[in-house]
């Protein structure tokens, strides 16, 4: 059947609630409305007010009460309406959600999921398009997952709810309407592992979330230009699957990390550093990052200049010191549209 990513997430929540009565879903507008992106559509009607409900409008309150509910044995799945609106909950997430297991030496665990629609590309006005993953991946104790495919949206959500550890579940909001042929329910690879979405021999393109489709598009265009790109979907940003990613980079000898978030101090910096440590002698070129500009997220009419795209990925690929290599390279991309020196 054809399903969108939003529908797959909705079905995952539904199936989790049906199979485990400890699962409760709450947040802002998730009840009668079904969420501003309709990810919780129908849950209130089917499972009732005790299982899916609206709260007063306070993100810290939503996450903080989820902590207390999880302490009592429930498995809360809460929604932050948009990435930037999760910031009021930051203290609860970093000081309590991430640390409770550690503080109590495993006596209190918090099996809860914090869903955060994140990223741009939907023409949202300010505060509706942040990529906040690095704040969470920098916090030990959090598991940070993000699906790049419709099947993964379902499977990763089911697994996130089943984990005993708290999960930050980043939903690439511009892909909510992406369609795929998937028979639900579906279970894909284990959530902590990266997956190779396209096999290639020249360059490993490391991406996640909304950038999976963009990276695959780049690989398709790159093939016409003579580059055979391998695309790795991280799926789990924390923990990071070093093994799968490093194995790919050792095979190809080149790597590009792609994300929407601003480049400086971003998640790609950690990936690049780690792979340099793991694969230094296999690398033919420095690992390059293709990320957002280091500016506050732009207004809708300017966001296309901020976001990574096929051209910027292929520009980075072209800059991977092919002149010193025996690999047959494609055409120069110096004149391509959207190409920017130094990125």
């Amino acid at each position, binding site marked *: 059947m054809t399903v969108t990513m939003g529908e797959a997430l909705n079905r995952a929540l539904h199936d989790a609630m049906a199979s485990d009565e400890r699962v409760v879903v709450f947040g802002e507008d998730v009840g009668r409305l079904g969420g501003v992106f309709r990810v919780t559509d129908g849950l209130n009607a089917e499972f009732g007010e005790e299982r899916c409900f609206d709260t007063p409008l306070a993100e810290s309150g939503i996450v903080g*009460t989820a902590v207390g509910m999880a302490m009592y044995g429930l498995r809360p799945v809460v929604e932050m309406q948009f990435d930037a609106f999760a910031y009021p909950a930051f203290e609860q997430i970093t000081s309590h959600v991430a640390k409770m297991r550690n503080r*109590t030496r495993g006596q209190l665990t918090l099996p809860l999921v914090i869903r955060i629609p994140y990223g741009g590309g939907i023409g949202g006005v300010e505060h509706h398009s942040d990529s906040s993953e690095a704040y969470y991946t920098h916090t030990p104790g959090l598991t940070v997952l993000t699906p790049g495919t419709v099947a993964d949206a379902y499977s990763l959500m089911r697994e996130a709810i089943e984990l005993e550890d708290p999960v930050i579940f980043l939903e690439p909001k511009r892909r909510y309407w992406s369609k795929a042929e998937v028979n639900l329910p579906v279970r894909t690879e284990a959530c902590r592992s990266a997956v190779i979405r396209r096999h290639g021999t020249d360059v490993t393109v490391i991406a996640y979330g909304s950038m999976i489709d963009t990276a695959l598009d780049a690989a398709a265009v790159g093939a016409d230009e003579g580059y055979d790109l391998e695309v790795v979907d991280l799926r789990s940003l924390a923990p990071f699957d070093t093994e799968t990613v490093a194995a790919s980079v050792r095979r190809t000898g080149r790597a590009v990390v792609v994300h929407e978030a601003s480049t400086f101090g971003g998640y790609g910096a950690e990936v690049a550093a780690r792979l340099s440590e793991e694969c230094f002698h296999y690398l033919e070129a420095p690992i390059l990052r293709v990320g957002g500009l280091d500016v506050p997220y732009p207004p809708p009419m300017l966001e296309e200049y901020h976001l990574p795209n096929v051209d910027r990925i292929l520009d980075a690929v072209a800059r991977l010191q092919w002149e010193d290599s025996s690999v047959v390279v494609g055409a120069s991309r110096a004149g391509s549209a959207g190409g920017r020196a130094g990125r």
Partner: protein
Amino acid sequence: MTTLATHPAGMLDLVPLEEPACLINPDGSPSMALGLTMPDGGELVGLYRRLVAARRFDRQATTLTRQGRLAVYPSAGGQEACQVGAVLALHPEDWMFPTYRDTVAVVTRGIPPVEVLSLLRGEWHCGYDPKEWRTAPQCTPLATQALHAVGLATAARRAHEATAVLVFLGDGATSEGDANIAMNFAAVFDAPVVFFIQNNQYAISVPLSRQTKSPTLAHRAIGYGLPGYRVDGNDVVAVRAMVARLMDQARDGGGPAVVEAVTYRMEAHTNADDATRYRPPEEAESWIERDPLIRLETYLTNHGLLDQPRRDEIAAAAERFARSVRDAMSVDVVPDPAGLFAHVYEQPTPLLKAEAAWLAEELATASTEEVPS
């Protein structure tokens, strides 16, 4: 249909009495408080016993800090009646959410002091099992635990369990967003939770007048549609009766409530603080006449409930308790560094395994380098 006209009357019902409820006056004479009754003599002596032990424990912890056995100790000196009275109002199935200043409360709950003091000794963040004692870890980020209390209380109510929740807050913490969010969530969800605010007049150095323009902290409850109460925080009998009544009410579906216990922090914020920089010594001295222990002792003596042999026996028991704390805390502990990695995730990640191996190797190298010549 609910009409707007019903609201003003309902709100008027929420206005707290400004005079704190009191059952024993500072001079030891009996007092009356609406809805609160004086317990029998046996119970009063029991409260006295716990209060004496609490003060002795608090002084012992301060001494342990001076001896370097504790990294820091935020004293509950002067507030013992609040902490003892509130905790003794709890049922075993109730939960409590204490802060860093509520060590006396946590010890009064019955948790072994050596486990409680793990935090302040610097051994581990929480040394006791919160589930076993139905006591959350002592919370340092102000008011954040109030939301956990509301969430747990909501879950308990939905499970139709006879559990109510007591959350400890200080006067300063009421200015935090989470305190306000928690009271609002509790009201909206009708959570069986009691907000117990120990108003000890200071947030480190900042006086209450800098925290709020409300007539009292209990008045803050009106805005959430919650009843607010004031109690004399230096009257252990009144505190216990007030908290017990509100916890019973919450347990029976009567909803949440806010209590402001009016008290005074007799010591500095912690051993690292110097209170003379922000308040005159006369101020603290003026609170000595409202001391929680002396007033109960006077009442009991005047009513023939406490003679010298009994008083000596209670003092000796407190002394034995303090000695047991001192002895337990005088044992050197060496936390295992490998424990750093044990409880970050359910299963250690490859990264943590690698770091654990690296640390083990570093320690092994260090120990071979330390071989005596």
